[in-house]
């Protein structure tokens, strides 16, 4: 698909380095806190390496799936990416698929560390809703922001998923409370805040960008 000067297309394994950066930047939510680093005890470079390995396994149906991403390209250069998937498609829960990748790829000491931290961070966990579209990580290279790419990618990815299942009635996205630009960008394209979870445990801020997570919904 051509959208102005940009080509919008499904991601391929060749895009994995950009997709790994997308996941990392989205997870930081505009802060310096990368939960993959704080929870698993990894450097950002190690995080990028392990995310790339998980993406290269080509498991479909979760936030660590190459097939969940669309990318925007200009002059042969990828400048933006966005992921979304249908939760529970083929009776496969995305949390299980992601959990499988984490347990299969990450070193044991990372998992042991995460298990100790888990009770603190799970306070802001929000479940995915089976049978709905879940919009995941998105990232646009700084020089290409304010060109409507976020809206173009969101509409295109929802349209493509609806073609595979026209009965889906809602799309959801989860955003950290500190990420005001992302909240505003989503509200501009008809996502509305429908729920929030907040932790009063200050320790959570050692591991996550915010102690508050929001659930936004768009009726389709």
């Amino acid at each position, binding site marked *: 698909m051509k959208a102005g000067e940009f080509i919008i297309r499904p991601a391929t394994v060749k895009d994995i380095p950009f997709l790994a950066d997308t996941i990392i930047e989205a997870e930081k939510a505009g802060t310096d806190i990368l939960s993959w680093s704080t929870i698993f005890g990894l450097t950002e470079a190690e995080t990028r390496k392990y995310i790339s390995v998980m993406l290269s396994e080509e*498991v479909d149906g979760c936030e660590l799936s190459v097939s969940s991403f669309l990318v925007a390209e200009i002059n042969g250069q990828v400048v933006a990416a966005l992921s979304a998937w249908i939760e529970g498609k083929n009776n496969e*829960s995305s*949390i299980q*698929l992601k*959990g*499988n*990748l984490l*347990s299969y790829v990450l070193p044991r000491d990372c998992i042991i560390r995460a298990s100790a931290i*888990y009770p603190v961070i799970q306070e802001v*966990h929000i479940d995915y809703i089976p049978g709905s579209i879940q919009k995941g990580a998105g990232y646009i290279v700084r020089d290409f922001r304010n060109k409507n790419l976020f809206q173009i990618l969101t509409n295109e990815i929802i349209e493509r998923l609806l073609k595979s299942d026209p009965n889906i009635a809602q799309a959801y996205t989860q955003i950290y409370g500190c990420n005001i630009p992302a909240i505003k960008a989503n509200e501009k394209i008809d996502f509305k805040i429908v729920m929030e979870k907040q932790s009063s445990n200050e320790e959570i801020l050692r591991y996550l960008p915010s102690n508050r997570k929001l659930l936004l919904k768009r009726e389709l």
Partner: protein
Amino acid sequence: MEKTEITNKLTSIFKKVFDDNALVLSNELTANDVDNWNSLSHMMLITEIENLFSIKFRLKDLNKMRNVGEMIDIISLKLT
């Protein structure tokens, strides 16, 4: 190992990981049925299972486990 014994051992792991002593396993049980079953707790669950049964799953095996019954079947195969 008999499937009943596998189920009993799995029950103790599930109770520990999901911090729920009342949890009862059935073959049909899925992630949607259990509070706090998310990607991190699923990762912890798989790791506990591998440790307790001294096995290592292939990714292909893990992705076939859509409910507890399929999990028990795959563990049983790994142990034979």
